[in-house]
């Protein structure tokens, strides 16, 4: 049952790409196809959209006939993937408010725990070290103007 569900994920991805190709063609035609002698802004994307749709459909059909289609990550890998992506996203959302030093501390600690770094001391030391490294590299050495947020 799980195997069947895994197979579907890869097939759905190809279906999505085929639909994306068709959507690109539809939107591009609206930009103006022009003619071969005087190409409009839509001509090139029409070619690309068609290529994406056709290739994705062929890959999909081939996968379905072969009974393959790419499986998704298992439960544990899926959780790690979700947690990593959530941490990345939270860094982006919180950075303007909390400042880059604080979010770096929190994000590195979170990454360390997600990647199974044992205990509390090691992730803490790693997050403090990384925040310091980022501060020295970007703020002091490269003079990048990063949001300081609460520490501003």
């Amino acid at each position: 049952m799980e195997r069947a569900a895994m197979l579907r994920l890869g097939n759905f991805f190809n279906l999505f790409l085929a639909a994306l190709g068709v959507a690109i063609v539809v939107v591009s035609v609206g930009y103006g196809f022009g003619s071969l002698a005087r190409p409009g802004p839509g001509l090139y994307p029409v070619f690309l959209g068609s290529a994406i749709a056709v290739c994705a459909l062929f890959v999909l059909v081939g996968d379905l006939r072969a009974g393959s289609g790419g499986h998704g990550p298992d439960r544990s890998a899926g959780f790690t993937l979700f947690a990593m992506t959530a941490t990345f996203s939270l860094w982006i959302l919180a950075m303007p408010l909390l400042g880059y030093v604080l979010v770096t501390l929190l994000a590195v600690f979170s990454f360390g725990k997600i990647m199974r770094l044992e205990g509390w001391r090691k992730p803490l030391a790693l997050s403090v070290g990384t925040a310091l490294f980022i501060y020295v590299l970007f703020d002091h050495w490269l003079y990048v103007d990063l949001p300081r947020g609460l520490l501003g």
Partner: protein
Amino acid sequence: MDGLQLLLNGFVNSLTLVNLLACFVGALIGTVVGTLPGLGPTATMALLLPFTLPYGATTGLIMMTGVWYGAMYGGSTTSILVNIPGEAASVVTCLDGYAMCRRGRAGAALALVAIGSFVAGTIGILGLQFFAPMLGNAALSFGPPEFLCFMILTFVLLANLSADQPLKGALMIAAGLFISTVGINPMDSYPRFTFGTEQLMLGIDFLPIAMGLFGISEILFIAVDKYVKPQVQKIRLRDLYPNRQEIGRSVMPMLRGSFLGFFVGLLPGPCTVISTFVSYALEKKMSKNPDEFGQGAVEGVVGPESANNSAVMGSMIPLLTLGLPFAAPGAIMLAGLRMHNVEPGPMLFTTHPEVFWTFIAAMYLGNIMLLILNLPLVGLFAKIAVIRPQVLMPVISLICLVGVYSVRNSLFDVWVMIVAGVVGYFLRHWRYPIAPFIIGVVLGPTTENSLRQTLMMFRGDVTLVSERPLSLALLTVAVLFLAYRIAASFSGKKVPLFVAEDKTL
């Protein structure tokens, strides 16, 4: 000015503190990355690109090539000592390199690989130095139809050489080309696929996509994988002396690998990886004792390792003379040069000759630096291989996040990187090649310009391409190649052209 004088000028320019430092840092980081299983040269080059922006185009190019080149040197260390390839171009080295290690000849293998890489690197640079200006001059007469046909041939070969299913390769190229159409089209100032959003007007920046696809997706892969601590054999300096027999057996594979790698480097696709497989097969075929291969044959280590180094230099020729990157690291370099307003191509040798010749001179110096770095410090690099990814990856994640943000102070770019990273994870999980995607992104604008200019030149009559001999020849090669692949698939014959890019990235 003749070639020698231009080269001497290049040496004068490259012997500045900034360029020497860029060369050394690039080579050192490349070697470290090469020894680390996981993070490959492309991801590292994308990661370092923002740091090269405050310096000139030449400095950036030197640093980027140093990373690529250094990774080829460093990749062999872990292959030989721990049977884990630091990057895909060193997979073949595991076969006989680790077998030599088990027989107590690890030091000799490492020394011969370093010397072989040096010889191959030097031959590669010599080839680049002589062929690139010649091809560059010839390419001056190319018009839009020739460039378009070159790109069509590149895409056909790339799709076939990069993926187990050529259609997946073609799909990735088309998707990459599509991404480059987002934003205002410079030819007619028409906004496409922006959906009224201000951020998309300038298009999707190359750097966040590259860092996402190569950096973040690799981090996600490593985070998901279970870590097994490798055991590293201790190497002392006195262990590095190969015996007379090993030296004698290495000379010809070294030279064969160097020449073969250089020419394989001219092919689109993961040329460094392909060169190692071809070289290994060639050495096995030419050996008097083919049974020794897999049991610790020195030819099986030195030949492929020499080949991957000269392939790097070979692949610089289409990049610098035609502006066509045939591999993912080349695409990063092209993007880096464009950020410095330097457009590689036939005009490079007339508009920015100093970039080319300083780069050549710096590569000679970098090659010597790498030899000096890799022989005495091999034990240290081997220790780097056992740094736990749980410690390394969080730091790299943060460098990616802050690095991408710092280029344009744009959180939108950081979102693009994360989305590209997650998409990249699934693409790699489902064995879609991502190098053709990134090459599509970087070549997109040039392809569209060439297509539209060609159509306007021919007033829509594409049959006129038959009146241009070079264009016709290039298209014929592309069609013949496709016909061969289709015929082979219908006859049920396996055509083993594809080499997994995986950690070439």
